[in-house]
């Protein structure tokens, strides 16, 4: 069973719909036991960092996430919450990835919204994906490139498109909205 973390973030149903299309059943839950026993956990997300972290802390879900040992995938805000710190709402985050999240400098349109390809690419999650493949982004904050970075994208500056450390994976783009290539990436995660 795939568990999708239920918290105060948007687009949770689109992740569930995408898993359905791939033939995988999933539950949307914030129950620590259900999350702990799931084969895979997805932390989706469109939303605001400080209110999301507050929501997770109030329910002890921050510790639940940190204790997970199965493959975990953070998407968009999910990725940002897995970093150390976010400038959005001056927020201390989960600290899974040794990097910080910053607001794009206002030298081009913000949010970074639309389809963009990769600057660099490696890792199991993005197996079979090529640099020219476009995926869908919508975000105003980005995470800085670090040791755990497995893919980068260029908009205003190069930033983390994907990260991996131990059992934790994260992508800044929305695989659930990235047509066929997004489905391939979700399938890669489900095959881990």
């Amino acid at each position, binding site marked *: 069973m795939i568990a999708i973390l239920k918290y105060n973030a*948007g*687009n949770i*149903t*689109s992740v569930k*719909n*995408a898993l*359905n*299309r791939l033939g995988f059943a999933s539950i949307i839950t914030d129950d620590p036991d259900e999350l702990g026993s799931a084969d895979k956990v997805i932390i989706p997300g*469109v*939303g*605001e960092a400080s209110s999301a972290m507050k929501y997770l802390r109030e329910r002890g879900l921050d510790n639940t996430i940190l204790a997970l040992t199965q493959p975990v995938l953070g998407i968009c805000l999910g990725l940002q919450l897995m970093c150390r710190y976010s400038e959005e709402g001056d927020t201390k985050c989960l600290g899974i990835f040794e990097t910080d999240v910053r607001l794009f400098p*206002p030298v081009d*349109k*913000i*949010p*970074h*919204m*639309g*389809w*963009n*390809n990769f600057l660099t690419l490696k890792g199991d999650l993005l197996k079979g994906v090529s640099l020219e493949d*476009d995926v*869908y982004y*919508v*975000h*105003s904050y980005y995470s800085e490139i670090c040791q755990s970075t497995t893919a980068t994208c*260029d*908009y205003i500056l190069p930033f983390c498109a994907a990260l991996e450390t131990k059992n934790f994976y994260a992508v800044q783009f*929305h695989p*659930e*909205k*990235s*047509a*066929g290539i*997004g*489905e391939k990436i979700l399938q890669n995660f489900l095959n881990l």
Partner: protein
Amino acid sequence: MLKRRIIPCLDIKEGRTVKGVNFKNLRDAGDPVELAKLYVKQGADELVFLDITATIENRKALAGLVERIAGEINIPFTVGGGIESVNDVSALLKAGADKVTINSSAVRKPELISEIASQFGSQCIVVAIDTKLINDEWMVVVNGGRTPTTLYAVSWALNVEDLGAGEILLTSMNNDGTKSGFSIDITGEVSRSVNIPVIASGGAGLMKHFSEVFFNTGCSAALAASIFHFREIDIRDLKRYLLNENISVRC
């Protein structure tokens, strides 16, 4: 590189896709979900669904349609039509819409933009601005273009950006349905004035109209309806054409 987006727009009336000229003389253009699936296959980058006859009775039906679309479509889509409150937005997002668009209600109640942005994030609120050249000034018009306002398009665009809109869908009513090309001047002016993405709309008839608007304005996306519905332009051909014109698009 961030790609310029091509966005087919589906006007919905009682569950069917329709299209008219200058918002009149509506023609049937088929089942919205089937049409949407075709556009995804052709490489559309996003979709917009506008319920042009949205009423309270229709709202539940619209949420049902959104659920059907969300189940089948693997690219982002925006839904609009008759949204008056945060609750309306919540219902559409819950049904699976990625973004919502508001138009007349934003002019009537600008605070609705900030309410939606603070509750669901700027990324999900697209403010649609219909504009018309009145006495040589691009003015905002509402109610499907029927009612003029005293707002200038550029200052209203700046205002909606301040209020938290994540994107602007700008339609020139002078060009809409004419197939004579997008309005370059107001699209360029609005796009240069704001720091959020602008979607150009109204007037697409030929492939070169898309390259013109992308070359000459800073717009992030271009939206069209009838040329796609009536198979006058295939999105795949359009994107090949734009690539040849050195415009970066997703293929």
